[in-house]
């Protein structure tokens, strides 16, 4: 169960099937982990490394969205840590740490009134708030306004969270964050919290009828999600060393993150990672091959692929690999 999706392809006798699956799953996980650890040493192209870093970052953001299980949390909270760092000279790690509670508190303040709305209406309200935040950010000089924030250049060190001579540390930091995010999701899936989240996603009123205080659990989901989005945002800020409202706050970014989870498989442990691993390189590839022709062919191809998945595999790509990938 969830220890690795391709193991469902294993055909084994009914009795030993589960344990065989588990062994295969663990093996596959170990191979995947080793492969990701070794990757930057095998393929030394900076471009590929950057691509994989972004896959990991987006996988983490998509997983955070996934935890919120269809209740779309729209707000990128990367700003907190960068502002703390620039205005008051806080260490970026402290900023990352401080950004999380700020993000959680903000998400709760926004979530509480919005959770009174259902489904699409909730999404509309959060989109509206997202747009307001973007407008605010563009006009608020304290956080850089429309010009954005350029983070001060510092010497390489883990403490400063800046690495210029070698980008390897960024790779391992984002990998660690992604693994942490997956572990937390894996843990949630197996406890009451996960069961409650799924029940609320399926039918909030039925969930209430069996005694689940739905607002409380939605807020918990929002808080967990916001914590990971905030950590991801802080990482992004340190990696790019520049933040502006148009690159981290647009609605299109929220939609992209949500798409990754949807294409990979909503409500599954591996879906967001699969979605990110496929779509981020794909969008790069189509952009390189067909971009710049002035006819947006790259976006056409990207959009066509998304439509195909939506029509033929609504359970997401993970759904192709077995029972675990339920819609």
């Amino acid at each position, binding site marked *: 169960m969830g220890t690795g999706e391709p193991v469902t392809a294993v055909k084994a006798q009914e009795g030993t099937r589960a344990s065989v699956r588990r062994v295969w799953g663990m093996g596959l996980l170990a191979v995947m982990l080793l492969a990701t650890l070794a990757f930057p040493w095998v393929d030394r192209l900076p471009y590929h490394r950057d691509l994989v870093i972004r896959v990991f970052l987006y996988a983490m953001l998509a997983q955070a969205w996934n935890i919120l299980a269809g209740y779309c949390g729209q707000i990128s909270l990367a700003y907190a840590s960068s502002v703390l760092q620039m205005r008051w000279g806080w260490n970026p790690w402290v900023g990352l740490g401080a950004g999380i509670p700020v993000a959680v508190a903000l998400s709760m303040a926004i979530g509480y009134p919005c959770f009174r709305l259902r489904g699409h209406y909730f999404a509309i309200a959060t989109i509206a708030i997202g747009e307001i935040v973007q407008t605010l950010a563009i006009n608020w000089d304290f956080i850089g306004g429309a010009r954005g924030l350029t983070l001060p250049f510092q010497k390489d060190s883990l403490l400063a969270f800046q690495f210029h001579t070698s980008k390897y540390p960024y790779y391992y930091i984002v990998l660690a964050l992604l693994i942490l995010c997956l572990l937390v999701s894996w843990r949630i899936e197996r406890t*009451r919290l996960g069961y409650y989240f*799924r029940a609320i996603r*399926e039918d909030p009123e039925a969930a*209430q*009828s*069996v*005694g689940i205080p739905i607002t409380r659990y939605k807020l918990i989901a929002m808080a967990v999600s916001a914590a990971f989005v905030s950590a991801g945002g802080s990482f992004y800020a340190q990696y790019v060393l520049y933040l502006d409202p148009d690159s981290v706050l647009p609605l299109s970014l929220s939609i992209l993150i949500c798409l990754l989870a949807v294409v990979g498989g909503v409500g599954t442990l591996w879906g967001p990672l699969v979605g990110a691993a496929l779509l981020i390189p794909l969008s790069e590839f189509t952009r390189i091959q067909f971009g710049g022709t002035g006819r947006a062919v790259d976006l056409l191809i990207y959009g066509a692929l998304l439509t195909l998945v939506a029509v033929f595999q609504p359970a997401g790509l993970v759904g192709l690999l077995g029972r675990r990938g*339920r819609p």
Partner: protein
Amino acid sequence: MALLTVEGITKRFGGLVANHDISFAVEQGEIVGLIGPNGAGKSTLFDVITGYYRPEAGEVRFDGHPLVGRRPDQVNRLGVGRTFQKLRPFHAMTVLENVMVAAMQHQAVPSAARREALSSLEFVELADKRDSYARDLSTGQRKRLELARAMATRPRLLLLDEVTGGVDQRTIPTLVELIGHLRGQGLTLVVIEHNMRVIMSISDRILALHLGEVIADGPPSEVVKERRLIEAYLGDAFVVPSGGPRGSGERLRGEPE
């Protein structure tokens, strides 16, 4: 003291009065049948009792606790379970997981909740379907799933909305038998039901609603003689077989259109 008392409940939707000044009491261990033509306000009354709707006037008391103003989950935690007329299983979860979610109110650890859910499923004879997805069940099986799910929260009062509605005729006796078993477990039940034969045979008492008001309240044998009840049904979508004596509960067995 009665386990459930409903005192002067009035619920309006704009100009429509769905429940008008409804009062009744349900004693511990009783099975009360709630009948009435479509639109009489039966399901609305369930929604008011369980906290989904807030009434304009009146109070509901369960075991001494006032219920009006409490959320549905709080009402359930006090010991009131319910099923829905329009079935609401968690479609993308397995039968077992559906019931586990409910059992987790008392058993936070999944393995313990699984055991409790299984015994609930055995009770409704659905244990062999435990790994099926709820969306793949037949209507009769879904009704039993809803029952198992409500049972797993360990209620003292169970509100059942349309136990046999939309179910294969051959499945009805199984469901009726189940209700008998529920009583055997010491549960108090309020049952909404359109099948007259079923409701007359299982209920200790019948409460009839018409246009949001209580028009009859008493033992089945007396309620069937109530003139206003017969009029309410005959004036609605119900049919009495030709030649049948009016007012005989046995013959008043039409299904809603």
